């Protein structure tokens, strides 16, 4: 029979293997649950059914579309082909303005209304979020 030491070593290797696979499983599982997909207004229009999870949308803020009142901010995001109305309550970043790129995170109400929970700040007036650039380029 095998000695105690060998048994112990096998047990140890087995344990390490088990822990590693558990960790990998755990990470991948919560990755699946917590990623946020990005969609352009055109993507949203062509969705088979309304996405229930949190998503990000992006494009340009349409000119003359910003409307603000005490509780909320409304504006329209466009990729020059399709548009989507956005309603938002929260902090508005400095560089948010008409005719500039924007990324908003939140939930779709229907194919033309998006309830945003966050508008992403940018740091640089020349900087365009890569997704927005790609979404606009496709047009």
């Amino acid at each position, binding site marked *: 029979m095998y000695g105690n030491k060998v048994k112990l070593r096998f047990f140890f290797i087995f344990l390490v293997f088990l822990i590693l696979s558990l960790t990998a499983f755990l*990470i991948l599982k919560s*990755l699946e649950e917590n990623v946020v997909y990005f969609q352009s207004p055109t993507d949203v229009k062509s969705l088979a059914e309304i996405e229930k999870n949190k998503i990000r949308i992006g494009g340009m803020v349409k000119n003359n579309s910003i409307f603000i009142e*005490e509780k909320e*901010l409304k504006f329209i995001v466009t990729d020059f082909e399709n548009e989507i109305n956005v309603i938002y309550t929260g902090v*508005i*970043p*400095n560089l948010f303005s008409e005719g500039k790129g924007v990324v908003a995170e939140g939930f779709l109400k229907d194919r033309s209304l998006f309830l945003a929970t966050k508008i992403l700040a940018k740091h640089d007036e020349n*900087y365009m979020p*890569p997704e927005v650039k790609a979404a606009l380029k496709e047009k």
Partner: protein
Amino acid sequence: MASLIGFYSLIFGLCLSLIIVFFSIKNFRNSSIFDKKIISLTFFQFFFVSLSFFGLIFSFINSDFSNETVFNHSHTTKPLFYKISGTWGNHEGSLLLWLLVLTLFIFLFLLKTKKQTKQYRNLTLLIQQIIIIGFFIFLIKTSSPFNYIFPVPMEGLGLNPILQDPALAIHPPILYLGYVGSSIIFSSTLAATSLNYISKEWAKHIKKWVLVSWIFLTLGILLGSIWAYYELGWGGFWFWDPVENVSLMPWLALTTLFHCILILEKRLILTSWVIILSISTFTLSMCGTFLVRSGILNSVHTFANDPERGLFILIFLFGLIFLSIFIFLFFHKSDEKNYNFFWLSKETSILINNWFMMYFLTVILIGTLYPIFLEVISSEKISVGPPFYNKLIIPFLIPFLFVMAIGPKLKWINSDLENKFFLVLFLIISILISYFIIKNFNGDFLINTILLSSAFYLFFSTSKDFLVRGFKNLSQNLAHFGFSLLILSILLNNIFSTEIITNLKIGETFQSEKIKINFESIKSKNIKNYDVIIGKFNIKNLNNNIEVLKPELRIYNQPNIVTSEADIKTNLFTDKFMTMNLVQNQDYFNIRYQNKPFMIWIWLSVLLISFGGIISLFNKRNEN
């Protein structure tokens, strides 16, 4: 002129690298020429890179717009301080700073290690020079800070206003000292591995270098975090943004490495582990530079960028990884004889916590890289946010904190728990305190209670060490105490933070059950390179105390950007934080008011942690 000197200094520096490489290869056979010649050559190299760096600073101070970098990132009306800090506030300049620190570290290393063997110093120098040459070529070829523009523009494009800030002005140099400092650990570990030089004495000597870069990295992250807190106006200190993550990963690797080296120094075990960690720390630092500079990261921090640069760093990075794996596999002889230690010992507890740290590191690495990976293979665009990290890290923080509380009380090799009475007493007290705090204020979150108990537990146990053992092991006690304070303040801050976001016109008042915010007035002022609008808000709480906060909006002339300056009233218990923002063409101001308890303790505790490191660096007695 200054640009010209700067550029040629770089070329000289590169030539010196080649000469040094030539001499150090020659030196393996004939060791008589080593010391003086090579040290003075490395000094000259450092000197030329500094000259180049000062040339760039000089061009910035003089607003020499014939230099492309200066043109892109400076403006005549900018205050002097920000003209200087603009030097490293951009890609080209910050890489020059990388190079400067690389050459500085190898020079200091040669000066400080005269007691080590020549072969070892020689090989370290050689590996470090390979890295240096890589960066020289990278800098000169893809991102020279000394490109000319003709005709010479009259005015520059200006520095991004959010970078015009004291904390961010010194953040890059400090952070880079940490990042790049890890290069010397990388080179010397590889050298020691190939020469089979790893010993207790080696561990003692490399420990100092690990500490130096760890201290700078800690302070660098702290500065960045403070800046994000008050300048970005998000009212937090950590957002799990990819750019923040890439600075945290080397920090975790470095912290783990430091603890492993402590074991190595005592017992000469875990050598492979130490080698792997040294390699990963530097690789992660390089990776950070690559990710930030290539622009493939989907981050709010990303500035303008260029894919060619990314490709170069990536190839270079893979070259280095390949080299180190090769050395590790072929030269490393593991001859660990006395591998046995009892399960209840200091070694075990450090090892367990190392595993936890590696787990945290893996989570962050996957969370940061997975979106990039997915985009490459499926062109699906995703982002990974705080919920992912919170869910995967917080539960594992609990056992981590407990092991950290008990570990330092154990002895090496074989130990028994002393003072069981105190350990149990602290546990009971911690659970009771947390239970009452959570119960009275914030519903009944089971996880919060357990988490808070473990943080309190660590807090009590490190406080006791601190009081009882005092100056014995001061550095460790201080750093661990600081860490417990950090976790505790973060938790309390998270649980008790409140915020109000609303849109107000001038003269209007926001009212809720607990608070009344009156937007009294605005006034505007003209300052050198920006106009400022200062709002005046009266905040009245339940006890009828009135607090006046005056957040600002700054409208910079060049580039024409609006930034919000938060107004923060800090005291020992809480921060009152307010920002306002004007939405284009509208009468409403977007107002955010936050109450953030124990904010100052987060900063102070990180200072304490790095202070522990500094003491350990200077305290000779502490070496035992």
